[in-house]
């Protein structure tokens, strides 16, 4: 079953690629198809990031993928992580409504309608080893780490490695090679 699921997921990704033009037509509307790709990317990101040991209670502690705000993935994220693991850890999805309740989380996808709210959340999360991901414009400038960007009929991503290293996260150079590295000047 796990294999079939894997195949299914990649099939989805590939289908997406071949249907690049069609996707482009609907790109602006952020169809669920985009989110199926983003869900796979979100999972793939975890493969190239290394968390400090203190981020986990023990070797068996699951890796938690959190969603703050409205969940845009539907069932795609669940499908993407089903049967997968990260360094022997199982993957768990958790949904948060307010940032105060965020705890025991390793990847956080932020999907808040107001940018000011996002800023506040990022400020609060400063110093915690949480990989922050969003597809909102200006996320990196607000202190986020990974921003998914729709461009050239494809989904790219931008990474702010400084923010990640401040959070004690190590991002693989391989990831950096395929990403667009953005350096945000320190706020005054």
């Amino acid at each position: 079953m796990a294999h079939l699921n894997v195949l299914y997921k990649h099939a989805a990704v590939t289908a997406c690629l071949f249907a690049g033009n069609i996707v482009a037509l609907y790109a602006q509307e952020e169809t669920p198809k985009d989110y199926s790709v983003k869900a796979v990317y979100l999972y793939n990101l975890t493969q190239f990031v290394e968390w400090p040991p203190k981020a986990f209670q023990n070797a068996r502690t699951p890796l938690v993928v959190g969603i703050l705000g409205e969940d845009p993935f539907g069932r795609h994220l669940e499908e993407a992580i089903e049967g997968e693991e990260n360094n022997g850890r199982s993957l768990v999805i958790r949904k948060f409504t307010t940032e105060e309740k965020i705890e025991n989380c390793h990847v956080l996808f932020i999907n808040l309608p107001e940018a000011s709210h996002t800023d506040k959340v990022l400020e609060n999360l400063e110093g915690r080893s949480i990989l922050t991901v969003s597809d909102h414009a200006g996320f990196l400038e607000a202190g986020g780490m990974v921003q998914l960007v729709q461009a050239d009929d494809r989904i790219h991503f931008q990474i702010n490695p400084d923010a990640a290293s401040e959070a004690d996260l190590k991002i693989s150079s391989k990831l950096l090679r395929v990403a667009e590295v953005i350096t945000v000047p320190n706020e005054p």
Partner: protein
Amino acid sequence: MLVNLLTSGAVLLVTCLAFFGYELYTFRQSTLTKLKSLGEITAANSTAALAFNDIDAANELLALLHSEQHIVAAVLFDSLGQTFAVYPLELAESEYPTDPHLTEYGYTGGFLEGAQPVVQGTKFLGTLYLKSDLKALQERFLLYGMVVLIVMGFSILIAYILSQLLSHSISRPILALSETATAISNRQDYTVRAEKHSNDELGILTNAFNHMLGQIQAKDQTLLQFNKNLEKKVAERTLELEISLNEQKETERRLSEKNTALSRALEELHRTKEELINLNNELERRVESRTKEVVAREIEVNAKNHELKKVNIDLDNFIYTASHDLKSPISNLEGLVGILKEELEDVDNPNIHQFLDMMNICTTKLRNTIQDLAEITKVQKNLEEDLELVSFEKVIEDIKEELQITANSTFAVDLKLETKEILYPIHGLRSVLHNLLSNAIKYRSNERPAHITVSTYNEEDNVVLMVEDNGLGIEERHLPRLFSMFKRFHSHVDGTGIGLYIIKRIVENRGGRIEYISKGNQGSIFKVFL
């Protein structure tokens, strides 16, 4: 020379070929390893590109393979097996397998190729295919070939020059040494010495060789001497052994002689033994036959004895009948003679009276004889008489009284009776004593009065009765027939010659015997074992 060159050339060739082969092998291996590690690196680097569908990044990554000029093709497949990126960009689809199954890196047909997985963590992301040509290998092969050829050429040249140079200084002394050695071993002549050509190692070798020769020569001398001594000793020992062998043979011969003598003696013994056995058998046979003879004789004797007994009985019967039948005619004859004497009393013829008296005497004698014969038969009859305890003194007194009536002279009887009584048939004992005493009186000497001594005593188990007189005695010549019937040795007195016979019969019938001991003409002793 040529041999040296060929040898060194062959050795060099083999060495070079081995080296060449080894180099090629290691080069192939290292090329393979290099391709493998290149694949590893490339696969590791292309994970993110595959994960995030970044074809540009993938192409860029593969383009880096440009620095490896022998890589002719590189293809990245995604996890579904679709071609994701290729190198070089103009690569035709026929140049690589469209089916990206994983295969180990290896040499296939003029190429080195293989495919490996692209994995991030545990996640399979795609496949990397790499293909390399073998130009590097061919270049290396050419290079090595050149090197080998050059090295061999140079080596052989140098070898030739060196051998030319060295043959003079090395080969010649060695050849000389070898010739010397051959000469020595052929002729066994250890006095030869090798000639020394130089003061180098070969000179030292020659010295050593000569020194060795000297030692061998000395040893050879010693050995020869030793051999001679040994031969001498062997000869001596052989002589000793021969002598001792001869001695041994002599001893053996003597022993065998002795042995022969012994066996002869043994044979003799055997023969003697056999003779003895034969003799013994003969003796046994003789004893047996003699025994048979004796038995036969005994049987014969018994038969004769039986016959004699019968004759004896017949004789006894005859005597009894004769004495009994003659009694009445004798009495008639006496009566008739008496009547005749009375009738003829008046006849005055002295001759008639004398004849009549003589007739009377004759008849009386006849009567007495017949009485004695009757006595004998009586004895015969009394043999079965019962035993009773008899006193010697009483019997002797009775007989003495009886004899004093009939005897016409006096006599004296002394008794020395140690044994007083005896268990005996009384008539037998009486008859024995009566006859002995009457004989002693009857045959007394006229020169002296009769004196008789009767003694009894025990001798051994028997009672002995001895009657001794001082009478006439019996002449020596009569003794053998002393106890026979009707034998008389003195004619001047009356007697029938039957007394002693009767005594003998009585005594012998009881198991005893009678002996006569002569005193010459001074008397007789009768010793009776009752």
